């Protein structure tokens, strides 16, 4: 692998600028003549906007304009879209209400923008915003799904009667009914998957710069996928055609899904920049992030699992209500359907599955993909069910899982996914060994003698990553293809620029992608740079989410590298007067195999550009590109086991040990993989113990600051004990599965299974706050 090749623990190239404060984020960019936007947001969860009086604000110092939702309508700026069409079980398309970037008539969640002040400074804009008088007529609001679906509930959108977006089904209802009719045991479980606020470290921001002479826009934005942003802004929002819109996503401080989507603020900034004739900057603050960044999760589910007399699962039925908030965000519709229900087979051989998902509007912040996106909800449900079943059937939880593991691959589940490879016993074995599962009973007894309740919890997760084969997702309603593109540019002196449609916002692509090049050519990674995040530099790309950048994005780079190497070999063979088939690449040289004849890679590059002595008919230059469309999803899987103690006096949970045995296929940089797993586990633990975005009955957010919303901190989580088992993914040449979301997908069930084991009661919702655990312990 070489010291910087695939598998090496290379220190991250990008960290020098991040750690020394030299990163360049959207808010760091200052343009000449730049104005600042401050949005006026609804304090009500549901209200009519009767009148907006901006006359006083317009007279205030430094105010350039006050723009309203009605002006957006007048200028025919399009509404926000949802890019994945879901069809209900009755054949009808999903029912969507319009989402204008600023509300001209009706606001439907606290924080929805109704107007924007553009001024010479951020503070002046904020001053003037206080002088804008908005006359609201409050309407009854509904914040929780159970209330929203009841007859007589306040209605959000006339297009969606009963606040229902869709009623979607997957699987074979008849087969499931047959299985349940012959079941020896049925296990039932109700679970709530709590709503989370994503909280990337960098709040969202945008700068729009309109060049009237060229009729051209430049948008700097905190995006995980700038090309998709340009596509959507051009094709649906009537902002500008693609060749007149450049989108730049520079350094971005974390996304976790929340920066995939197009939000009202960047649309308004673009439109406003043209209206006022100056660049417009908006930087959200933390409160705006809590109110307007798309939230995650928020499911309420009833599930039943049928077992035969040998404890084999024979059927699963699931009914889930999914909260979408007040509007359908860009990919929201796909999250509780094709990213959730297709993973309900877990790691288990389940012959019959049926799931029904009802999407619901409420007067809350829109909900969309958040690290894991549907797969954490599926994994949590299945792993809570397995634990519940083990307790009910009185068998060891690990043994019950083993009894039901899929062991033959490929494996077609009843819910679309065809698992390509895996070894679920191997990861379970590794995790059980790492935590000394056999010795737990003794440790539990010891803890009991000290007044502590000790528990152990297993979670065997599987996810579908490497998103995604374009044809497959197209057939399921996706509005885009999910391939990736790459370009390899070799400069005349042999340095290399890799242009990629993947976007790095913390993942370390500037290091890992270089490692592939170093691995293939034997050049140091200092000779390679990664170019991403700019639609003028990179022709197209689908961005970073769904643990796809290595499995899909890096494979695209590999394909482009192979093309480049093929041409370079021809040049080298010509120069060395050898056969192309005899050329091998070693340590930065092109060699004639079995001889000492060689030419250094920079000389090959120079030859390509001088073009003095190229093979007949060959074009000069050394630059190749590739589009790579995966043939299947990838299926990272693993086992997490958590051991913890509960203090019966306070209900407080303390970790004793947390082991993770993951199968991610081939690892490019194990250090970066470990960082990804750590971050994911912390988010999973955060969901299990701490985090919950809560609204009161009137739709007022209760957790809109870090004083109330409990983000996990370093001392809330244990040191993690990580290991890897490996089955190479057969779907891509590098054998990569993806590692970005696993921790967030698998961790929460391990924690709740362990707490419920400790306290001896099975019903416990997330987050398992000390109060909630204490009340569960003391419940009759």
């Amino acid at each position, binding site marked *: 692998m070489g010291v910087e090749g695939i598998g090496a623990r290379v220190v991250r190239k990008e960290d020098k600028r991040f750690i020394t404060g030299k990163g360049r984020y959207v808010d760091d960019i200052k343009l000449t003549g730049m104005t600042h936007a401050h949005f006026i947001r609804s304090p009500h969860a549901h209200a009519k906007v009767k009148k907006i009086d901006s006359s006083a604000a317009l007279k205030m110092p430094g105010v350039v304009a006050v723009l309203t939702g009605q002006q957006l309508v007048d200028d025919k700026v399009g509404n926000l879209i949802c890019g994945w069409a879901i069809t209900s079980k009755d054949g009808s398309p999903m029912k969507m209400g319009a989402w204008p970037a600023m509300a001209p008539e009706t606001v439907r969640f606290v924080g929805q923008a109704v107007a924007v002040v553009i001024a010479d400074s951020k*503070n002046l804009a*904020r001053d003037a915003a*206080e002088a804008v008088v908005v006359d609201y007529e409050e309407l009854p609001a509904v914040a929780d799904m159970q209330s929203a679906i009841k007859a007589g509930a306040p209605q959000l959108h006339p297009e969606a009667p009963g606040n229902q977006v869709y009623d979607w089904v997957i699987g074979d209802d008849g087969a499931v009914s047959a299985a349940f009719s012959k079941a020896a045991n049925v296990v039932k479980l109700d679970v709530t998957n709590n709503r989370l606020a994503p909280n990337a470290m960098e709040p969202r921001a945008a700068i729009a710069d309109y060049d009237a002479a060229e009729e051209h826009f430049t948008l700097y934005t905190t995006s995980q996928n700038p090309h998709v942003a340009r596509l959507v802004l051009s094709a649906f929002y009537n902002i500008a055609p693609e060749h007149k819109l450049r989108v730049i996503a520079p350094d971005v401080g974390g996304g976790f899904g929340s920066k995939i989507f197009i939000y009202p603020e960047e649309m308004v900034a673009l439109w406003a920049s043209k209206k006022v004739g100056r660049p417009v900057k908006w930087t959200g603050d933390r*409160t705006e992030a809590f109110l307007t960044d798309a939230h995650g999760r928020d499911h309420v589910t009833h599930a039943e699992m049928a077992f035969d007399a040998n404890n084999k699962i024979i059927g699963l039925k699931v009914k889930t209500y999914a909260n979408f908030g007040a509007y359908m965000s860009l990919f929201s519709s796909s999250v509780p359907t094709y990213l959730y229900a297709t993973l309900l087979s877990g790691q288990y051989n389940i012959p019959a599955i049926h799931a029904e998902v009802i999407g619901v509007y409420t007067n809350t912040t829109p909900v969309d993909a958040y690290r894991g996106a549907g797969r954490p909800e599926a994994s949590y449900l299945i792993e809570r069910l397995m634990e519940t079943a083990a307790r009910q059937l009185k068998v060891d939880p690990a043994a019950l899982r083993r009894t039901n593991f899929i062991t033959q691959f490929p494996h077609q589940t009843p819910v679309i996914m065809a698992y390509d490879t895996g070894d679920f016993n191997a990861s379970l074995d590794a995790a059980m060994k790492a935590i000394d599962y056999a010795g737990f009973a003794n440790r539990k007894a010891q803890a009991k003698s000290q007044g502590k309740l000790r528990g152990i919890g297993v979670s065997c997760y599987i996810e579908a990553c490497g998103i995604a084969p374009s044809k497959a997702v197209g057939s399921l309603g996706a509005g885009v293809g999910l391939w990736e593109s790459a370009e390899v540019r070799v400069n005349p002196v042999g340095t290399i620029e890799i242009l990629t449609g993947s976007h790095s916002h913390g993942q370390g692509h500037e290091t890992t992608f270089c490692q592939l090049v170093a691995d293939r050519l034997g050049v140091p990674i200092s000779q390679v740079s990664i170019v991403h995040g700019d639609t003028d530099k990179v022709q197209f790309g689908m961005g970073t989410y769904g643990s796809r950048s290595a499995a899909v994005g890096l494979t695209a780079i590999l394909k482009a590298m192979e093309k480049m190497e093929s041409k370079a070999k021809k040049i080298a063979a010509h120069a060395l007067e050898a056969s192309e088939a005899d050329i091998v690449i070693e340590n930065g040289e092109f060699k004639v195999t079995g001889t000492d004849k060689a030419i250094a890679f920079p000389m090959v590059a120079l030859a390509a550009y001088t073009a003095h002595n190229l093979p007949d008919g060959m074009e000069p230059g050394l630059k190749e590109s590739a589009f790579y469309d995966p043939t299947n999803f990838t299926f990272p899987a693993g086992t997490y086991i958590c051991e913890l103690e509960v203090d019966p*006096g*306070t*209900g*407080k949970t303390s970790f004793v040990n947390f082991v993770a045995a993951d199968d991610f296929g081939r690892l490019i940089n194990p250090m970066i993989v470990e960082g990804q797993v750590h971050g994911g586990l912390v988010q999973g633990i955060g969901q299990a*113990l*701490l985090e*919950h975005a*809560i609204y009161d009955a009137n739709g007022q957010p*209760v*957790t809109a600051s*870090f*004083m*109330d*919303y*409990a*983000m996990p*901190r370093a001392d*809330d989580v244990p040191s993690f004990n990580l290991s890897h088992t490996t089955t190479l993914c057969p779907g891509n040449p590098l054998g990569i599965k993806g590692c970005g979301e696993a921790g967030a997908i698998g961790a929460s069930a391990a924690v709740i299974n362990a707490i419920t084991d400790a306290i001896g009661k099975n019903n416990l919702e997330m987050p398992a*706050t*000390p*109060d909630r655990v*204490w*009340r569960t312990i003391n419940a009759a």
Partner: protein
Amino acid sequence: MYQTTYHRASSVDEAASLFGKSSEAKFLAGGQTLLPVMKQRLASPSDVIDLAKIKDMIGVEASGDTLTIKAATTHYDVATSDAAKKAIPALAYLASLIGDPAVRYRGTIGGSIANNDPAADYPAALLALDATVKTNKRSIAAGDFFKGLFTTALEDGEIITAVSFPVPAKAGYAKMRHPASRFALTAVFVAQTKSGEIRVAATGASQSGVMRVGAIEAALKANWSPSAIDSVNIPASGLLADIHGTADYRANLVKVMAQRAVAAAG
């Protein structure tokens, strides 16, 4: 933040004088409450008078049976003070639990008690230890100082200069942290004075702010041990309730934290 005028006072007298000249001045100590509130535009003082750099207001001193902490001393300095750790280790421990490192490097004892947040740590220590609040005008017993939520006996423009704590025979502090804010979800300070008086104060529990817990004091007077508190009944009525803790839960925590504080006190 709205426009404001910042003053860095170099003495208590100068600070008091600056306050008198301004229409709507606020004193700034560690700024852990005032600055976030100003950033959110929920406070708009015309003038901010910084007390944190007044040399006479910083330091921890032990003398005889009294530990004196000057008002602008940070939580970090109290937590790491040899004098505090020797005289009243429970007090240094309390300071080490306030907020997070960033808060402890900035926040001050004077700022904390002047704000009198119902879930702040220090008020419990002052009340349980029968401390005296020294101002530029007078001395106020802790029992007279705290007047309910965010309210104190301080008069307009009055500046806390120090807090003096009688060194107790025994003292202990136990805190259940609020998972988000790191204030006290409920915390209890117990003390046995050198004259044998038992004083117990709980913070984060009552809707009226820091409170003495008479029932626990009585139980401990009869028998200074954690188990003495087992049979005490703490009613949930009048206790705080929020998403992180119901009133019943806080009532339980008052007992459990008191037991752990007694165990820690020895």
